[in-house]
């Protein structure tokens, strides 16, 4: 049992590409090579592995085992983290718990996916009978429904969503890992002119499936120092809430599990929304950011648009949001997307943000979202606080 703080002591990320023609295994190999190179540790020291589930390899229930084999790792702790866009966060949290329990000392959390090259998932369940025949084939229609209801309850958030889209694209242009297809500036007018995918949801409210990978190294502060890893960030809080209020079939669509996890998260870390230096918020759609701001307590319920319009959310602002461009503007590497903003948080806390380095880099709040259900916002909510 270890009492040394759990830390993230290394990261790696491969540039996001659209239809790369490469597999999740190829991407995992690339990002693992980069992780070893950046941290200068021999692979034999890594004795734990968490693999995020993958859309392109979704038909393989043994993905974690195949990945350990592919990467040549002997693992005393092996985990398949399958919480959708929260998989990376949950993988890091699970690695931390496994380390505290003495099952592993140094764990890699690897997320690699290539859904724009190959689709290998079938969600099954009730979708074929009760969802798809109604035209709800995927997330855009579900988020179109969510946006309509949000606007009905709280007023039209279009200007705030435009600001989020434009700001994140500006950030993405400073990120060398941004997908080539998205490497062009957009204006408010571009946002407003972008076509409706599921009205009122626009194309520029939405992510684009791409291919990519990211990796993180989790250990204790003491062990990191003992193997020469001098840069690390402490994990000071982690909380999840999946399927909130399951006995309420009329739960407001504008609610999420973040409402329930926020008090637990901030109690663990001793932080509060006003003390957060950067928010790396899961951003499959722009409206999700407004709702997370509200549910995590950055502003009152329904005041997300006002908050965004009155706050400088750029990397140099008072509350930098998604400073790497987020998946909206970097590209969504399938279920590796949850690691995209997590890696950006660690990069910023390491002081390696380059041209987009945030001014205050003592802490970060990172979130993850997973699974679009029937008539609710999203099933899985997860959030983590990191401190330098």
């Amino acid at each position: 049992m270890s009492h040394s703080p759990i830390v993230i002591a290394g990261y790696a990320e491969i540039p996001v590409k659209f239809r790369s023609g490469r597999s999740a295994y190829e991407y995992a190999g690339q990002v693992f090579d980069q992780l070893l190179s950046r941290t200068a540790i021999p692979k034999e020291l890594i004795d734990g592995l968490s693999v995020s589930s993958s859309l392109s390899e979704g038909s393989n229930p043994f993905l974690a085992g195949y990945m350990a084999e592919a990467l040549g790792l002997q693992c005393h702790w092996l985990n398949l983290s399958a919480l959708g866009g929260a998989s990376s966060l949950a993988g890091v949290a699970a690695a931390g718990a496994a380390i505290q329990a003495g099952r592993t000392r140094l764990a890699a959390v690897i997320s690699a996916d290539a859904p724009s090259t190959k689709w290998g998932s079938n969600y099954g369940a009730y979708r074929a009978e009760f969802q798809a025949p109604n035209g709800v084939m995927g997330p855009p229609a579900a988020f179109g429904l969510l946006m309509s209801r949000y606007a009905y309850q709280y007023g039209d958030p279009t200007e705030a969503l435009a600001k989020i889209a434009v700001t994140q694209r500006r950030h993405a242009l400073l990120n060398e890992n941004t997908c080539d297809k998205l490497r062009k500036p957009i204006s408010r007018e571009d946002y407003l002119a972008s076509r409706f995918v599921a009205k009122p949801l626009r194309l520029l409210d939405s992510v684009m499936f791409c291919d990519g990978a990211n990796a993180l190294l989790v250990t204790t502060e003491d062990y990191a120092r003992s193997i020469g890893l001098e840069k690390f960030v402490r994990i000071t809080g982690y909380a999840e809430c999946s399927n909130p209020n399951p006995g309420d079939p009329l739960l407001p669509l504008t609610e999420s599990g973040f409402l329930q996890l926020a008090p637990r998260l901030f109690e663990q870390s001793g932080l509060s929304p006003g003390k957060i230096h950067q928010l790396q918020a899961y951003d499959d759609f722009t409206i999700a950011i407004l709702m997370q701001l509200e549910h995590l307590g950055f502003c009152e319920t329904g005041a997300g648009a006002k908050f965004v319009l009155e706050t400088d959310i750029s990397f140099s602002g008072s509350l930098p949001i998604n400073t790497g461009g987020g998946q909206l503007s970097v590209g969504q590497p399938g279920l590796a997307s949850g690691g995209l903003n997590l890696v950006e948080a660690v990069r910023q806390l390491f002081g390696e943000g380059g041209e987009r380095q945030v001014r205050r880099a003592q802490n970060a709040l990172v979130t993850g979202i997973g699974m679009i259900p029937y008539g609710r916002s999203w099933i899985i909510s997860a959030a983590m606080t990191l401190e330098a």
Partner: protein
Amino acid sequence: MVAAAKHPAENATRDYIDSTEFWRGISRSALMLQYCPVAKAFQHYPRPVSIYTGRRTLEWREASSTGTVYTITEGMIGSAAAGSEQRDVVIALVELDVGVRLLATVDVPASREVQIGDRGRVVFFEHPEGYIYYRFRIDA
């Protein structure tokens, strides 16, 4: 053109839970939903247990088909590449008066646009994929 139909409940008992009663209802223009007699409440979509008790305290009952539009979206569905007809649809999440939400395409009135709060009822129709299904018709 209607593509070769694959009924959504083709594997109704094998792919998910046994929804035979729902589809029997559809075939006679009745909305059969799961009902928990302990909680005295409906639930939809179907589940293997009651969301209220966690137990299999479930039966199928015919539910009133009236309700209110809770939210809407509009978009193009279908895929020429996949061999299905492309069409514009209005999709609603409806709050049925029996206390559950139902996803449905909307039978749009000719005279005006659909709005949140509109009242209507579930009706049955031949889905473009070639089977009987339900949608929500706004009251005139």
